[in-house]
C-alpha cells in the first residue's frame, strides 16, 4: 500500500512541470503502470482523489495505461504472456527469459488547458 507515496512523488513531477505552464489548468495525467510495478491503479486513483481534493488539481483525470507483464525467451526469441511464463518458455522450455513489459511506473504526459 504505497500508492499514497507514489502519488506524492508523481505530484512533485506534475508540480515542476506545471510551474513552466503558468496559468494553465491541468486536465489529465497520462501514466504507464505495469501490472508487475506493485502499483494498483484503483488505489492510486483513490489516493490521487484524496490528495488533490480542494486543491488546483481537483477533478484532474488520471489516464492509466495498464500494461500486462510479458516476456521473451532469450534462447529462441518467442514472446509470451505472464500466464505462460511460470513454467518457462512455451516453445523451448527455457527459463532464460527477459521480462519485456509490465514493470513500468512512468509519468508520460499531461494534458493542459492553456
Amino acid at each position, binding site marked *: 500500500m*504505497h500508492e499514497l507515496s507514489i502519488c506524492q512523488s508523481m505530484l512533485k513531477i506534475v508540480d515542476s512541470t506545471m510551474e513552466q505552464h503558468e496559468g494553465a489548468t491541468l486536465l489529465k495525467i497520462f501514466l504507464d503502470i505495469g501490472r508487475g510495478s506493485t502499483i494498483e491503479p484503483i488505489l492510486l486513483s483513490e489516493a490521487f482523489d484524496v490528495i488533490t481534493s480542494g486543491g488546483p488539481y481537483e477533478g484532474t483525470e488520471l489516464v492509466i495505461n495498464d500494461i500486462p507483464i510479458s516476456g521473451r525467451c532469450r534462447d529462441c526469441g518467442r514472446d509470451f504472456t505472464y500466464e505462460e511464463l511460470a513454467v518457462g518458455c512455451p516453445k523451448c522450455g527455457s527459463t532464460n527469459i527477459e521480462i519485456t513489459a509490465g514493470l513500468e*511506473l512512468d*509519468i508520460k*504526459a499531461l*494534458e493542459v488547458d*492553456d
Partner: protein
Amino acid sequence: MSRVEIEKKIQSENDRLAIENRKVFAEAGVLVLNIISSPGSGKTTLLEATLDRLADKMNVVVIEGDVSTERDMDRVRAHGASGIQINTGGGCHLSAKMVGAVLGQLDLGSAELVFIENVGNLICPSTYDLGEDIRMVLLSTTEGDDKPMKYPSIFHEASVAVLNKIDLLPHLTYDVEKVKKEIRVLNPDSEILELSATTGEGVDAWVEWILVKLREKKSTQT
C-alpha cells in the same frame, strides 16, 4: 488544449536520492545489502546468525526498518551490530530519503558491511532503491511455494534469493525446485541460496557468499 510530454519514471526522485546514498556507501567502502521479505520469514534471525559468524571479524552496521518498536535493533545489537532503527509509523517500506536521513548517525567509516532490514513486505519495498549494492529477497518454506509468480516485482529486482527454514521441509508440502524455477524465470541471473537460520544449515555458505561479494566490491574500488 495541449499535451505536455514528460516521459519520466515516477520514482526518479527516489532513484536520485539512492545514488546519493550509494556515493556515501562507496566512500566508506562498505558493502550494502537490502533485505526484503514477508513478515516472519526470518530476516532478523538470519541477521543474528550472520552476526554470530562475522561480528568478531569486522564491524557490521544494521539499519532496521519497522513500523514500530526497537525490538529488531535490540536483537541485532545483542549479536554485535551497531546501527539504527527507523520506525516508519505505518509506512510499508523504507525509501532512499529515510535511509539517507540516518546515514550521518552511523559509524560507516570503521564498518565493512551494512545490512538494511526493510519493513516486512514483499510488495512496496521492491520499488524503492535505497542505494544498496545487493537487493536480496528472503523467502521461507512456511510461506508456501507459490510466492515468486505472485510477487513478481521483488523476484525480478533481487539479485539473490535466499530460501530460509529448510529444516522444516520434511513437515511441509513445499516444492523447492518449482520455487527455484519460478525465481529463475523472473530473473535468470538471480543467485539462489538455501539455509536454516535456526539450525545453522547453509549459513556458513551464506556468510562466505557475502564475503566473496565484499572482496569483489573492494577489488573494484581499488
